[in-house]
């Protein structure tokens, strides 16, 4: 899970910034926290709209693409510091990056009360309609007497405090997962098939739609190849061995990452011999480049991906229409991939002709297929005419 942290202070030395840096460092295995800087944000003024300035756009983008935000607030005169409020004003005027965003509030101050009043004000501010953040309820983390709280390395001294912070953070992670799932369910329209957003594994500085993307991108990241060993989750193979292995899979595999970029297929043969025809020059392409620009098709692709991304289901399957049913029955499967924390990582797509499998099964068990007189077969069962994605309830993503 990727979070951004905002320290509500522009002072040169800030304990709230120390607290955020500690969270980022100490809980590295749990979450990825990037601490943002609010120092150069100009004073909000309705008459001088600077929404488009680099500093505000950058903050907005970081918040929009994060899974959640942690705000560490000092307390000035029983409220949040003006510098923090100022940032929120810019981000609630012409743009609204906090909209629907899970937020966790923490705060450090010199006294035992530890920013409790400022935190209450901040909750009210974040819940105002122009901001519309979703603040983690309860779980108040107040760090009082902050001057004595850290050692010289910027680490919290008291283990009980660290444990409490960890519990709070874990609660927030669960909360953010649920909120993000709910708020994303219906917005398949927002799937960006042009893949321009990028993700942490996107290779920057190479045109993804270039024919030689693979060579360019591999060079850029110094990718290993040939007889170099790669350590996998449960095995050790050379890159060559990986290729031998994948190319002989009984299915055609395609890897689309969470940024909707097509980054791999197992080249089982030349394009004309394949069920789903792919050519090497397509590798690296954004999804809108590899699909025909027909609105019905685009909509369908978006719906399938969004269904997987949001966890409505883990698997979408559909027959490929148009084939000769007596010769083949090609199925397409789309399976969501996730990392250890349950973050969506893209689609594993495979195409397979199940006719030979069924035929062999029938042959070996001495059976044959007969037509079901009561069956209602949808003539357009290729789903290409039917944009609505059927959700396979049994395989739905309740695990996440």
């Amino acid at each position, binding site marked *: 899970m990727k979070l951004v942290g905002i320290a509500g*202070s*522009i*002072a*040169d030395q800030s304990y709230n910034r120390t607290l955020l840096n500690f969270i980022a460092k100490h809980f590295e295995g749990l979450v990825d926290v990037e601490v943002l800087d609010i120092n150069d944000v100009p*004073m*909000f*003024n*309705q*008459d001088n709209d600077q929404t488009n300035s680099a500093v505000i756009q950058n903050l907005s983008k970081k918040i929009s693409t994060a899974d959640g935000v942690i705000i560490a607030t000092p307390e*000035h*005169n*029983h*409220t*949040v*510091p*003006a*510098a923090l*409020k*100022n940032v*929120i*004003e810019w981000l*609630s005027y012409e743009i609204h990056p906090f909209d629907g965003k899970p937020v966790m509030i923490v705060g450090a*101050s*010199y*006294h035992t009360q530890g920013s409790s*009043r400022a935190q209450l*004000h901040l909750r*009210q*501010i974040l*819940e*105002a309609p*122009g*901001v519309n953040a979703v603040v983690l309820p309860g779980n108040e983390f107040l760090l009082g007497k902050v*001057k004595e709280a850290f050692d010289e390395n910027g680490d919290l001294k008291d283990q009980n405090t660290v444990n409490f912070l960890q519990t709070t953070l874990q609660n927030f992670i669960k909360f953010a997962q649920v909120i993000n799932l709910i708020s994303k369910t219906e917005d398949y329209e927002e799937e960006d098939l042009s893949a321009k957003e990028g993700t942490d594994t996107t290779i920057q500085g190479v045109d993804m739609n270039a024919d030689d993307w693979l060579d360019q991108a591999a060079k850029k990241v110094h990718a290993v190849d040939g007889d170099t060993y790669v350590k996998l989750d449960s095995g050790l193979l050379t890159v060559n061995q990986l290729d031998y292995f994948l190319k002989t899979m009984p299915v055609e595999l395609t890897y689309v990452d969470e940024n909707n970029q097509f980054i791999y297929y197992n080249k089982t043969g030349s394009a004309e011999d394949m069920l789903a025809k792919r050519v090497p020059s397509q590798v690296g392409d954004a999804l809108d480049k590899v699909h025909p620009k027909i609105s019905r098709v685009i909509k369908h692709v978006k719906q399938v991906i969004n269904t997987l991304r949001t966890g409505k289901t883990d698997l979408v399957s559909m027959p490929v229409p148009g084939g000769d049913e007596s010769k083949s029955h090609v199925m397409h499967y789309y399976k969501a991939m996730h990392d250890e924390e349950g973050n969506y990582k893209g689609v594993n797509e495979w195409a397979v002709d199940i006719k030979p499998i069924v035929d062999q099964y029938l042959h070996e068990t001495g059976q044959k297929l007969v037509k079901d007189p009561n069956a209602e077969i949808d003539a357009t069962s290729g789903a290409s005419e039917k944009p609505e994605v059927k959700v396979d309830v049994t395989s739905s993503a309740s695990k996440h």
Partner: protein
Amino acid sequence: MNKFIAIVGSNSNKSTNRELLKYMQRHFQPQAEIELVEIAGLPIFKKSADKYVPQEAKEIAKKIESSDGVIIATPEYDHSIPAVLSSALAWLSYGIHPFVDKPVMITGASYGSLGSSRAQAQLRQILDSPELKARIMPSSEFLLGHSLQAFDDNGNLNDQDVAKELDGLFKDFLQFVNISKQLNNANVVNKQKVEKFSWDKD
């Protein structure tokens, strides 16, 4: 005659809160002298090792010190007071303490129907904090909702009921200021306490 400082809590050129204070300045001329003070020129509050306070803030502080009371008109941004006002109040409590025991009347105008009620509630809590310690007029609230439509071409309030309400509140404020002047036995001590108080102390 009482002299009041009226703080425009907005840095917008066509602020309806400024309009409200200008109306009060004109309308209550026979009863009090009201001077409008702008806070738009102040930088965002920042703590520093040498406790630097901008000259402009010091001048505003002086005006408040020598006044009989302060009127604040606050917009509502995101259910609270604008950063520009919060910032000004932070400067005006940073090594200088002009608000201690000073009578304050809170008013506010906003475009919505609630007329800055939530911002005003927060402003009360802010003015009550140890380094501001203002004397806020109790149980009174002047909320001017739909502020863009509230004034006529001459800058007068369109709604007579609203105008009467404000007349009443201002009368109360004048009395509150007078009572307050008699409640000054602890003022010297209060001032000293605040001067000694520091958030930075352990």
